[in-house]
């Protein structure tokens, strides 16, 4: 009694005033529990490994409490319209409530609630979860007084004498939602009758079928009915006032129900269909079982009752998303509660254990994640078995029914989930950009989600909805839960999720490849050798959109941090490379990118400590919830997207109606235009774009252009032809016929510096060096008036043009090529020229293009001043030039000579290895990080504009004005590997043996570790104006590595010089000094060689084919102007002798194919020579060997074999 006295009575209004979640359960001792067995207190908290601290346990009151009040069936209240709610009221107030294991005998009775949870419920209400209760002492005695309820009221009655008619005893299988059926009455017109359906399987045993209903009643109520077999399904219709029993009946699903006083009626379902069912009448009675114990249900088929409908699943709720439309169970199943009529109890909270009955199981077959769907229909019901001990929000289904909701309800389950994912994604992506109304729509207007989704979904996923009555009664024929075979559309993914996913895949691949060392992912772990040191190369992973099955939606902008083009949404941004970005792109547009590649690069050393996520960024949970990876702010990765605009489905008319593209094109309708040729772009300078600083507003970037002295005039009457299918380019490209007019007869071309302020960076980004641009002419515009400088504001548009002619075959085509250049250009407009204009332009342009430094394709094209070979001083020389080649390696460098002499304060630079015409050229750079374009790195083809040549010959230097343009990004991993193979993987594996060369295909890049054995042929030429002064049009060395011999060929001066021992004295090879005393210094040898060549022009040294010991002496020398002097001959022979006795080399080259061999054969034939009977290798690179690494890799190979 002492314990009892300490229990405080708490009123409902008291709870409501507290306005916060509370529990009155935790302090209860077993003494207090009176009647009901319960599990709730001992409920383990549902584990949530991702967010262990996310959930707070309901706060307990510090003292035991009891609530005394009456449990009622729903009374319509203003605060809650959920028809599944029960009500608990005391003298002070009433609240919605739920109760575990409802016992019908307490309906309408005063009870003492001894264990409860209370949750605040918006807007002003609260929600009581009754865990344990006992009948109030005053009510205890009244229990035997009734054993049944009249259904049309909630009046308890004691019915023993009445002979029940049309009694139904069976298992309650399912209950439909409450529906309104419009009925016509004679007096008042139409009125709605509320009601709900219930499906009961009854027994057809002798007893149940007997007419002696009294005996049956006796049997049933006394629990003597264990032998029943429930097999026949019938439908009950609780209509009229009996619908108020819905909260009670819906909680009894799965249990036994005994109802009498029903009337059999044919009910019209609509659409010409009707069904015989039992309808409640005024005399219908709901009988209560006498025993309070849970009855074991026999004779019930627990497996699938109906086709596609699953009986029951019990699990705990681990997530509630999308305003209750999606409930996650046990972190693996998503229960969709999308039909607005389905009203579930508020107690469906995270942490609760529930049993779901009558659902459709579906595998949506999403390619991006694995998930199972429980699709709900009008038969589905959920019962809470254990209330959640967690302070999670009440389940409050959205009651308003927008167009979007109707749209979702009309879809198959997997498509519903997909649309819900789209909703969540788009809301996240465009929050702050578009209003919620624009994204979701309203009751009458379609939003972005619906427009987008309906354009993606096939017709087969849509289904007609028939209404509750029909779909409940004719479940199967309505196609509910019918599996539809279709490929789900791609996931619309927020950018932050995409970045996390890609990083995660990258890290996982890194770990897999590390574990699997036997498989040897060497190309990705490869190093590049430079200056005797090996340098790390980034490893790269390329993920294709088709493998990830995602689609990107976002807008484009120029990053104010890096000045780079980015794809952005509200969740994040990612660098993007779009080679064919049209100049009419707008920051207002939303682009849909279906086909893209994500390129991720990183250095393995920096990534070693990174852990992969145990959280799939593409999982439904992370799309529905806020997702932010912890890794994002660290800069361990380079990540960017590569895509083409022509692959982007142009859905701007759906996604963004604000497009101003049309307006921009209006500018082209008439008027005159300046024609510009872009000569150069100057990179963003380091001092502005600091690591942490945003580009300041007054920062400018510059480009250099030539303005042509004539303007292009477009007349209004000129026909505008729209071409829709130029190379499948979906954007509007206009073909313009124009007239070339001279502005001023004597005017000449004017060179201009174009200035772009930060708002015009995107225009700068679009410019391509060597491209033609139109800019509208206005009276006294800056282009006309200024002498050498013009400012391009955000309004003036630069149109990229490509010239076409009427006749595009034969010579015209060539002419066009000379004008346009052969580079890949994606113009905004084509300008059609007559043949006269074309030839006129061609002549003029040829003169003008002299200002444009065209990229060279081979280092041999470079011209030099003489006397450049000053040993040891590597000064830049000559004019600015542009080179184009394949980047094979990039590493940090401290090429001291350059940086300290030319650029003060720069101590650390970058050395870029570029493969130009089979020769590796080094490009030294000390540009800022932002000067390298997105995607620049090993494997790309790039053009280096305005670089300086150094006296080393094949070493170039980037200046602060140099600009790097990426011509082709590597978007294919296969290609990637092959390129890596050309350089760096070669350094990681042991050198190939010549005897193994037979097994290699042509063009295969290999590295040999060999010594020169003989010189077969050496053609030397004087090069009056070119550097190096000595050229070697052809050199053939016989090399030997102990396994066999082969012939290696080259025309690369640096390679020949090295093999002759005439290059880079001591550089990168600390052990080489010993040779110095043996022969005269290189400098003297070079000048002697030049003298010989000055005299002869060219000298050919031929070996008759002997590989004898002194084969280098037994050679024939011939100069182009007669025989070579004996002393000169001896000098040259001494060089050959030196070549055959110096150290071993790393030789990198490719195996010659038959075409190459034939070409070589022809060249030798002209020299009266033949091919040697051995394999031929075209050498691109020679270097000293990294002995330790080579030894280590041989050892590893030996240990494996």
């Amino acid at each position, binding site marked *: 009694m002492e314990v009892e006295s300490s229990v405080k009575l708490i009123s409902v209004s008291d709870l409501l005033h507290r306005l916060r979640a509370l529990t009155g359960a935790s302090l209860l001792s077993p003494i207090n529990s009176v009647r009901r067995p319960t599990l709730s207190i001992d409920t383990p908290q549902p584990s949530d490994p991702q967010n262990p601290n996310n959930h707070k346990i309901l706060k307990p009151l510090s003292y035991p409490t009891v609530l005394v009040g009456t449990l009622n069936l729903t009374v319509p209240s203003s605060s809650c319209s959920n028809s599944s709610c029960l009500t608990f009221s005391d003298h002070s107030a009433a609240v919605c409530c739920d109760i575990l294991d409802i016992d019908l005998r307490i309906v309408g009775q005063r009870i003492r609630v001894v264990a409860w949870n209370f949750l605040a419920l918006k807007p002003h209400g609260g929600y009581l979860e009754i865990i344990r209760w006992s009948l109030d002492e005053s009510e205890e005695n009244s229990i035997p007084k009734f054993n049944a309820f009249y259904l049309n009221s909630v009046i308890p009655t004691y019915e023993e004498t009445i002979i029940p008619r049309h009694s139904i005893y069976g298992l309650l299988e399912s209950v439909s939602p409450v529906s309104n059926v419009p009925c016509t009455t004679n007096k008042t017109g139409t009125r709605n009758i509320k009601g709900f359906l219930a499906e009961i399987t009854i027994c057809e045993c002798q007893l149940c079928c007997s007419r002696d209903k009294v005996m049956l009643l006796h049997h049933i109520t006394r629990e003597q009915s264990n032998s029943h077999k429930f097999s026949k399904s019938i439908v009950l219709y609780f209509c009229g006032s009996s619908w108020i029993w819905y909260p009670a009946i819906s909680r009894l699903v799965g249990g036994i129900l005994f109802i009498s006083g029903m009337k059999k009626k044919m009910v019209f379902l609509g659409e010409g269909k009707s069904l015989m069912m039992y309808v409640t009448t005024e005399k219908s009675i709901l009988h209560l079982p006498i025993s309070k114990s849970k009855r074991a249900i026999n004779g019930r088929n627990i497996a699938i009752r109906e086709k596609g409908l699953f009986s029951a699943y019990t699990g705990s709720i681990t997530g509630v998303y999308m305003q209750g439309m999606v409930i996650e169970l046990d972190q693996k199943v998503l229960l969709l509660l999308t039909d607005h009529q389905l009203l579930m109890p508020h107690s469906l909270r995270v942490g609760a254990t529930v049993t779901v009955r009558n659902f459709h199981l579906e595998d949506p077959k999403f390619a991006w994640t694995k998930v199972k769907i429980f699709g709900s229909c009008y038969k589905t019901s959920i019962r809470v078995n254990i209330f959640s001990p967690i302070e999670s929000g009440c389940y409050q289904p959205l009651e308003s029914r927008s167009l979007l909701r109707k749209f979702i309800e009309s879809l198959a389950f997997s498509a519903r989930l997909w649309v819900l994912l789209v909703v969540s994604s788009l809301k996240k992506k465009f929050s702050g950009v578009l209003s919620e109304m624009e994204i979701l729509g309203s009751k009458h207007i379609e939003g972005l989600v619906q427009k987008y989704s309906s354009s993606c979904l096939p017709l087969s996923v849509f289904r007609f909805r028939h209404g509750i009555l029909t779909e409940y009664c004719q479940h199967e024929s309505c196609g509910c839960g019918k599996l539809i075979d279709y490929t789900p559309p791609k996931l619309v993914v927020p950018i932050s999720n995409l970045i996390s996913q890609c990083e995660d895949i990258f890290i996982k691949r890194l770990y897999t490849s590390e574990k699997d060392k036997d498989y040897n992912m060497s190309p990705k772990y490869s190093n590049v050798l430079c200056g005797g040191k090996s340098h790390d190369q980034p490893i790269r992973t390329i993920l294709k959109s088709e493998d990830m099955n995602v689609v990107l939606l976002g807008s484009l902008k120029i990053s104010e941090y890096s000045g780079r083009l980015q794809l952005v949404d509200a969740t994040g941004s990612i660098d993007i490379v779009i080679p064919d970005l049209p100049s009419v792109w707008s920051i207002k547009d939303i682009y849909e990118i279906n086909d893209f590649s994500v390129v991720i690069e990183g250095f393995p050393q920096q990534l070693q400590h990174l852990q992969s996520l145990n959280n799939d960024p593409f999982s439904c949970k992370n799309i529905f919830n806020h997702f932010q990876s912890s890794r994002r702010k660290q800069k361990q990765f380079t990540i960017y997207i590569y895509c083409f605009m022509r692959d982007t489905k142009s859905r701007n008319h759906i996604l963004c109606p604000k497009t101003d593209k049309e307006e921009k094109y209006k500018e082209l309708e008439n008027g005159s235009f300046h024609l510009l040729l872009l000569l150069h772009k100057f990179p963003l300078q380091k001092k502005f774009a600091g690591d942490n600083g945003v580009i300041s507003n007054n920062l400018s970037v510059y480009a250099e252009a030539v303005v042509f002295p004539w303007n292009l005039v477009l007349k209004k009457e000129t026909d505008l032809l729209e071409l829709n299918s130029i190379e499948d380019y979906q954007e509007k490209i206009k073909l313009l016929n124009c007239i070339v007019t001279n502005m001023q007869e004597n005017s000449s071309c004017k060179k201009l510096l174009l200035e772009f302020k930060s708002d015009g960076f995107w225009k700068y980004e679009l410019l391509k060096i060597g491209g033609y641009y139109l800019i509208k002419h206005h009276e006294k515009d800056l282009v006309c008036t200024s002498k050498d400088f013009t400012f391009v504001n955000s309004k003036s548009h630069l149109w990229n043009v490509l010239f076409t002619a009427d006749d595009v075959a034969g010579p015209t085509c060539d002419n066009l090529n000379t004008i346009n250049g052969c580079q890949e250009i994606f113009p905004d407009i084509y300008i059609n020229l007559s043949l006269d204009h074309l030839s006129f332009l061609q002549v003029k342009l040829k003169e003008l293009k002299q200002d444009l430094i065209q990229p060279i394709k081979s280092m041999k094209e470079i011209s030099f001043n003489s006397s450049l070979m000053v040993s040891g001083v590597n000064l830049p020389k000559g004019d600015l030039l542009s080179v184009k080649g394949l980047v094979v390696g990039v590493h940090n460098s401290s090429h001291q000579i350059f940086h300290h002499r030319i650029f003060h304060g720069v101590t650390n630079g970058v050395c870029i290895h570029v493969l130009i015409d089979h020769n590796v050229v080094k490009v030294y750079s000390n540009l800022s990080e932002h000067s390298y374009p997105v995607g620049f790195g090993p494997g790309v083809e790039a053009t280096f504009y305005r670089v300086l040549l150094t006296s080393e010959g094949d070493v170039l230097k980037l200046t602060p004005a140099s600009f790097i343009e990426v011509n082709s990004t590597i978007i294919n991993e296969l290609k990637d590997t092959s390129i890596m193979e050309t350089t760096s993987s070669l350094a990681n594996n042991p050198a190939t043996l010549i*005897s193994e060369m037979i097994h290699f295909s042509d063009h295969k890049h290999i590295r040999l570790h060999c010594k020169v054995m003989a010189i077969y042929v050496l053609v030397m030429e004087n090069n009056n104006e070119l550097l190096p002064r000595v050229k070697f049009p052809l050199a053939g060395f016989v090399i030997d590595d*102990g396994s066999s011999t082969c012939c290696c060929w080259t025309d690369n001066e640096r390679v020949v010089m090295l093999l002759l021992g005439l290059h880079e004295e001591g550089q990168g090879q600390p052990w080489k000094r010993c040779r110095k005393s043996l022969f005269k210094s290189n400098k003297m040898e070079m000048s002697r060689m030049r003298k010989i060549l000055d005299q002869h022009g060219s000298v050919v040294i031929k070996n008759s084919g002997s590989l004898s010991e002194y084969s280098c002496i037994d050679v024939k020398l011939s100069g182009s102007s007669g025989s070579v002097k004996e002393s000169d001959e001896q000098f040259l*022979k001494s060089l050959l*002798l030196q070549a055959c*006795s110096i150290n071993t080399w790393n030789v990198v080259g490719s195996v010659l194919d038959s075409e190459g061999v034939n070409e070589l054969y022809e060249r030798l034939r002209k020299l009266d020579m033949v091919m040697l009977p051995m394999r031929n290798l075209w050498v691109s690179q020679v270097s000293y060997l990294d002995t330790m690494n080579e030894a280590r890799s041989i050892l590893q190979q030996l240990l494996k074999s």
Partner: protein
Amino acid sequence: MDALHNTHVKLLAFDFLSLTSSASHPNAICRRGTILLSRGETLGIVTSREYKPDRFLRFTIDDGTGCIPCVLWVNQLTSPYHSRRSPPDVRLIAESARNFATLIQIGLSARVRGKITMYRGKLQLTVSDVVVERDPNAETLHWLQCIRLARKCYDIVPPSLPPMYRKADG
């Protein structure tokens, strides 16, 4: 077999010293009776040096598995062997040989290439060129290369060899 004929095979000393002269080819050397060799390369420490001015330099290279006797001729200016060459060529060869001879000093690590020859029934290397190795890793690399080449190249009997060679191998 032919592929190795003009190749400077890299053999460890114990392997080198087990070579035999070929019965069928007078000037050729056999390895395990199977492959014909003519030239070799070794790397090791110079452990003995015997210089006869204007005649020859006799020295041994110890690679850790054995000692290979080497001879470097410096008699080109007087030898009838070179008489058919032009005198300037011979001078060039002689100068080169003398330079090599000065490189060979006891205790240095040297890489030596030359012809594998028999002298009084004993194997030796008639040196054609010499490089002094200052790289401490070079010797280890040489050992590994010898093992790799033996496994991948020299131990493999070409299927086209006549049966007598196969038998000898077996």
